[in-house]
């Protein structure tokens, strides 16, 4: 085919994505260097890097960076481990397997806002929530989850939603594992753990790469769950990068500082992206 046709076919997707990236990005960079507060539209003018300074010195900045990374890493560890455990568990024929599978994947379809409200009200509420009812029944002190473990609570919510995703991918991958070498290994005296460690995990390596890649993309900018539950608090205990910028932009109306924050978020995302692509990107591209 003519190279012109090839270019023509790819052009729309590349150009549109480039525009989608460049236009808002350059506007964000521009806003980040000017006075731009929605409450005081009369204050304008170039102010260099002081929005950045303001954002970095924000008491929430360091916790936001740490929380973002803690959130992504914890959810990854939990979902990959439990997702794999579940996939291995149900990877055998039995009656009702289809139903069990549907039960296991359903949380993935629930809206993030609904997910968060559901856990906040019906499970983690310190008085009426099921967790507190159960702990009172067991004679324990009920815990106010969102007040005492805000980030942990959010990690639980997000993990509940994404374990099904990891489970789905590992399950499909396991179904393609050739059973014969496993049987041969069993005859040679390998136990279940050895078979899992030296045969199943290598078989799943590509699936693991897919899970890590996709989930990191989605979890770097977690927003809705924090928005409807803790509001980033108490203090900055559950504020991640996305939420910190949101609170600058829409709660304090300072578009300039929010844009500076946006630039930081983009830098953070790129560092993670480079790291990730080094780590797993290679195994993804055919």
């Amino acid at each position, binding site marked *: *085919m003519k190279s012109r*046709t*090839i270019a023509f*076919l790819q*052009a729309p*997707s*590349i150009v*549109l994505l480039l525009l*989608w990236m460049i*236009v*808002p990005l350059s*506007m*964000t960079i521009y*806003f980040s260097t000017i006075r731009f507060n929605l409450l005081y539209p009369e204050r304008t003018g170039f102010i260099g890097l002081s929005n950045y300074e303001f954002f970095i010195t924000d008491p929430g900045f360091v916790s936001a960076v740490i929380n973002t990374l803690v959130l992504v890493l914890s959810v990854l560890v939990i979902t990959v481990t439990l997702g794999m455990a579940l996939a291995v*568990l*149900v990877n055998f024929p039995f009656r009702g397997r289809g139903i*069990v*599978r*549907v*039960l296991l994947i*359903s*949380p*993935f*379809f*629930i*809206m993030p*806002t609904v997910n968060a*409200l559901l*856990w906040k*009200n*019906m499970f983690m509420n310190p008085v009426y929530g099921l967790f507190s*009812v159960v702990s009172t029944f067991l004679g324990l002190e009920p815990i106010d989850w969102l007040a005492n473990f805000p980030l942990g609570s959010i990690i639980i919510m997000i993990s*509940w939603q994404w374990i*099904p*995703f990891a489970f*789905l*991918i590992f399950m*499909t*991958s396991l179904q*393609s594992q050739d059973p014969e070498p496993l049987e041969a290994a069993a005859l040679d005296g390998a136990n279940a753990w050895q078979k899992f460690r030296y045969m199943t995990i290598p078989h799943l390596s*590509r*699936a693991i790469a*897919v899970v890590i890649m996709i989930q*990191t*993309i989605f979890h*770097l*900018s977690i*927003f*809705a769950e924090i928005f409807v539950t803790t509001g980033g608090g108490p203090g900055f205990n559950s504020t991640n*990068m996305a939420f910190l*910028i*949101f609170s600058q*932009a829409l709660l304090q109306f300072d578009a300039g500082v929010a844009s500076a924050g*946006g630039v930081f978020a*983009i830098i953070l995302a*790129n560092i993670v*992206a480079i790291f990730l692509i080094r780590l797993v*990107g290679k195994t993804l*591209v*055919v």
Partner: protein
Amino acid sequence: MQLTPKQKHTLRVLLSWVAGIIMFFPIFWLVLTSFKTELQAISVPPLLFFEPTLENFALVQERSDYFSYAINSVITSFGATLLALLIAIPGAYAMAFWPSRFTKDILLWMLSTKMLPAVGVLMPIYLLVQRAGLLDTRTALVIIFAMINLPIVIWMLFSYFKEVPKEILESARMDGASTLNVITLLLIPLTKGGILSTALLSIVLCWNEAFWSINLTASDAGTLTALVASYSSPEGLFWAKLSAVSTLACAPIVVFGWFCQKQLVQGLTFGAVK
């Protein structure tokens, strides 16, 4: 104690069911609560058996027109998915069959654009949409959702197209078929399953997208995520009503997902895990 294989099997079946029931329990509880009165919803100990009521659903419908939100969700998810497919199919086709030495980098770059947090560009997008007079319109959401999902859609299509033997398309072109004909008459029918699972994943992601729909819509183009959010703050204490609106918002996509789970599994794996 050594378990017999039969006991082992039974134990494993039991464990699988327990795991499935635990994972599903929150959804079950949500739906159950939506049929309770507000008082029953917060009763301690929680009620498992009670006389179900439909009053919450009636109240939700009375206060906000569920169907107009649902229609907005359907239109934006399907519209954005269709738009993304239209843009992505030719691109993925060219990249899969005539890769240049940049193709790999382009694909990784595309995926990396997904990592930019939406809040980082909230101000500019908001202003652009406002300037274009598209605030609170479905058009704005369709365009934005399509752009958000475009990288993933291209990726998935790329990996499906890769599996098609190049010779088939090559010989069709030798016989004089135009590019458009090769794509519509050969490539799309050959990769129907893959395209379908790509579309399904995109629809699910659009349906559940909350950030842009909350920030860019009000009453006209509000989607179901915006509807749920509107109940979350003032009505946060009314669990039964909140449960009813949540059940209504999630039911279509959950049921849709159940029906399509086989397809979706393929889609979620980027076609990479076989």
